[in-house]
């Protein structure tokens, strides 16, 4: 099993959700986060006081999938989130040791 964490633009969520749906993914988690990478922040002005805002709002999409689906899922996220501009985000793939469905106590791929 693998965990896919994708940091994407908030505006890309619908496209990513649809693309993931097409791969047969049945569940995902989304959280609102702030951060910065190569896309730097921006300037805000409040009554003449200027602030540099480094952290820009992003979404983090997390899915845990069987090893065989990694290529499909990563491809789907890229399809949904890519604009070609700086700030599209990043995808991280990491191994997951175990998964357990609480209701049935199933484990492994069956719990996904």
């Amino acid at each position, binding site marked *: 099993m693998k965990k896919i964490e994708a940091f994407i633009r908030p505006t890309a969520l619908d496209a990513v959700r649809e693309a993931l749906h097409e791969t047969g993914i049945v569940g995902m988690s989304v959280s609102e986060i702030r951060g910065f990478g190569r896309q730097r922040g921006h300037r805000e*002005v409040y009554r*003449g006081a200027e602030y540099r805002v480094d952290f820009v709002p992003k979404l983090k999409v997390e899915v845990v999938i069987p090893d065989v689906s990694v290529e499909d899922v990563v491809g789907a996220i890229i399809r949904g989130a890519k604009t070609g501009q700086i700030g599209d985000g990043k995808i991280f793939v990491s191994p997951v040791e175990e998964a357990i469905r609480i209701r049935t106590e199933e484990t492994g791929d069956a719990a996904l």
Partner: protein
Amino acid sequence: MRRCCVLGVLVLTLFLSGAAEAQGAADPVNPGDTAFVLISAALVMFMTPGLALFYGGMVRSKNVMSTIMQSFILIGVVSVQWALWGYSLAFGPDKGGLIGGLEWIGLRGVGLDPNPDYAATVPHQAFMIYQAMFAVITPALITGAFAERIRFGGFLLFTVCWATLVYDVVAHWVWGTGGWLRQMGALDFAGGTVVHISSGVSALACAALIGRRRGYGHDQILPHNLTMTVLGAGILWFGWFGFNAGSALSSGRLATSAFVATNTAAAAAALAWMILDWLHKGKPTVLGAASGVVAGLVGITPAAGFVGPMSSIAVGAGASLVCYLAVEIKAKAGYDDSLDAFGIHGVGGTWGALATGLFASKLVNEAGNNGLFFGNPSQLGVQALGVLATAVYSFVVTFILFKIINPIAGMRVEPEDEVTGLDLTQHGERGYNEG
């Protein structure tokens, strides 16, 4: 059922007032004027919750309730102070031009017959309650200076003392029968000096004495909800019609003229600040437009009943310009007048008082005077003296009050409480909870 009752009362009121007229009784109370003054009082009352939202949006979310409370609770505190002794000190029988006597303490003798010295056609109590709303909002304006770091108990004690020793006294000088500035011919239609200069200059003293917020100039201290601030500015604009037009104390030509001047000045000021923002910082900010509205309303306050519509454009746009500069300079001066109580009310109020000395015209109001641009340069001098006297007195008394109260009540919260936020540490609640 309730609606029926209200309707019944209305009909009865109309009938009774009609009956009084039919009898030809020489009742000096004019129902139209009285209705106007009472509604204006309600409009001015509504400005204080408006100010609470205006200020509340500009602080961080951990201080939103405390900032709102510092305005809101003053409707309670000052209304009671006003009834007990404030009105008597401000408007009671004159003592040497400096203060009103205690004869009207507890509103003794302030009844339902008009007091011709102040408003000949409305019940004395209508005038009193209208003035009460001014007394309420004035100390609320100061709270912008020490937002996000003042202890609630110290704040309450300070405010009661300030309302008594600064507001009531200055109100007497300018508006009280026999008050020395009034005798001298200083023009202040709706309280540019009494309300805005007194609170603005006191705000400067408070900001300097209480010190900057933790992290000021280093951390990002951002407004948490500017939609709230813009709504607040809208409510202030709405209420200000009661503040300025209502100051005519009669419903007619003068009130209309003041209403038009007020709206025109606020509108010109919104445009002026927006354009300054756009040219100087690159973007027309909404907070800037809202700030401009308030600056323009402050600026036109003393002039509202004395200037024509074209002059009011100049007064409003000029207010935005001077306040914009003041806010710019503040960032470099290093004191933390957090929400620009001085920058908008002190500076805008000073501009308004002086501009009244420039643009006032007897063609608009026979009871007023001409300003510099209408052939009477001496009026500008009188206005300047009014500004100076109010500013010096307010600053000095506020300074002394703060120095006395600080060791007793502790004006500033503990550093860890400031980090946690005043909502939790002073009031035991939060403005925003999940779920």
